[in-house]
């Protein structure tokens, strides 16, 4: 058994409010092993993104989390804001939803990747340039062509790949991707999904949040299904996706257009919430 990269015990997050506030995430337990790939799927607004924020220490201050989020043996929830910030880029890397907004618009993209080598890995300028060229080639970009452009001159898909190069360049071993395929066309969606798999094969531990069942299927690894603040089902992706046991997961499949586009009836949702 590989060592545990991330262990979440009884993570509960409450919204601010008079009597403790509304529960946004309710008693989540998760284990992600070193080099593993974990996908969290579920309802929009079920608390998926809040889980991701808790894992990366980017939870808004007004939310009060309880429980434990052990990352590499350290409880993130107990760290100060400054200590948490020092993890970013060094220990964990957050792949943002909109690549255009995450890149520096005034800097050529290759230089942005080189900067990561220089700042976070203390590489020499020459080494940084060489490593960047290698990474770009691996991701199907050319350092001498696309690398010399600014983010606004590249397509969304290319910027996405630049961000993946940054993830690979950083010494962080834990990559969190919150809805990486949101709003992408099928071709790009498949490419991004495959890139995430590629990151994983190259040794990074990947935690991916998505509402797209096809992305989850393509990624594989371990999977958990979240519904109304709780995890209702988890296990290896192929098993959960082939033979879902919870009515919500089953309902998600029924709702896919190819299975008839049947929304889960409101009555059933209420019943499930009671379960």
């Amino acid at each position, binding site marked *: 058994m590989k060592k545990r990269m991330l262990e979440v015990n009884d993570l509960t997050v409450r919204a601010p409010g008079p009597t403790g506030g509304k529960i946004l995430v309710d008693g989540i337990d998760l284990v992600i092993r070193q080099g593993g790939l974990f996908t969290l799927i579920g*309802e*929009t607004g079920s608390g998926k993104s809040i889980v991701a924020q808790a894992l990366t220490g980017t939870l808004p201050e007004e939310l009060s989390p309880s429980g434990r989020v052990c990352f590499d043996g350290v409880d993130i929830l107990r760290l100060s804001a400054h200590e948490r910030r020092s993890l970013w880029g060094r220990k964990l890397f957050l792949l943002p939803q909109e690549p255009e907004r995450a890149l520096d618009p005034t800097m050529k993209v290759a230089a942005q990747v080189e900067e990561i080598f220089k700042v976070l890995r203390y590489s020499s300028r020459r080494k940084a340039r060489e490593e960047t060229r290698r990474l770009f080639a691996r991701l199907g970009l050319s350092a001498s062509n696309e690398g010399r452009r600014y983010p606004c001159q590249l397509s969304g898909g290319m910027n996405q790949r630049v961000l993946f190069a940054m993830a690979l360049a950083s010494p962080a071993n834990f990559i969190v991707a919150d809805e990486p395929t949101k709003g*992408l066309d*099928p071709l790009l969606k498949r490419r991004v999904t495959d890139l995430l798999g590629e990151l994983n094969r190259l040794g990074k531990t990947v935690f991916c949040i998505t*509402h797209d069942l096809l992305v989850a299927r393509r990624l594989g690894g371990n999977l958990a299904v979240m519904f109304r603040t709780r995890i209702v089902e988890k296990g290896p992706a192929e098993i959960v996706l082939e033979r879902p046991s919870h009515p919500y997961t089953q309902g998600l499949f029924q709702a*896919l*257009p190819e299975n008839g*586009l049947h*929304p889960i009836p409101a009555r059933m949702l209420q019943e499930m919430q009671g379960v």
Partner: protein
Amino acid sequence: MFEPAQATARDKRTCIVAENISKTFSRRGSHTKPLLQGLDLRIAFGEIVGITGASGSGKTTLGDILLGLVRPEGGRIQWAGRDRTSLTRAELRDLRPKYQKIYQDPFRSFPPWLTIRETLTDVLAYHGLTRGPSDTERRLRRAAREVMVPEDLLDRSPGRLSGGEIQRLALARALLLEPFFLVADEPTSRLDPSVQALVARLIMRVAGERNMAVLFISHDAELLKVVCHRVFALEKGKLHARTAWRRT
């Protein structure tokens, strides 16, 4: 006000016509590439037409041209059987609200500091569609019911709603003006499958009940097959017919 019946006899069943539309796309003025090249499209009342295509193929631009938000470089748009450029200012003012849109990111289509009730009340009040506060209240409740959203959610600000709720309320806002035509620009691409099914089914129902023409833009070819009467792929500036499961 224009009524669909006022359209000429030949176009009575046709809600919106686009003929020979062309549009080039320029980025930073450096290079231009043709986006739409002599594109034709007609949509009948009550019909849902699906458009799919890769990112950047011009789907959203096509929708915006039909809505009169973007001016095409060539070609004609007909609203209610009349060439859009031949409409007088007054006619245009009357017809404008009949051509509506819902967005991929519904959160950003509402001003964040107003409650949904305030935004929707603005729409009714501006067009004088209400006879007083109690009438406004009645209409808002009916609008919320039509899109299956609990009435108390009207008092929330956009940020305190889920993606499915706010998209349905965006539809409700569009429906307040009793539109002839609706552009649904990837309305479900940010929703989970179950909520996607809910919103897509809702659009199908509303289009049928209100005899409204819909241009449904999506990346999801499977979704379009179920939702639309006709499906086209937008490739190299032209529309190419694809199979749809629904009967016209």
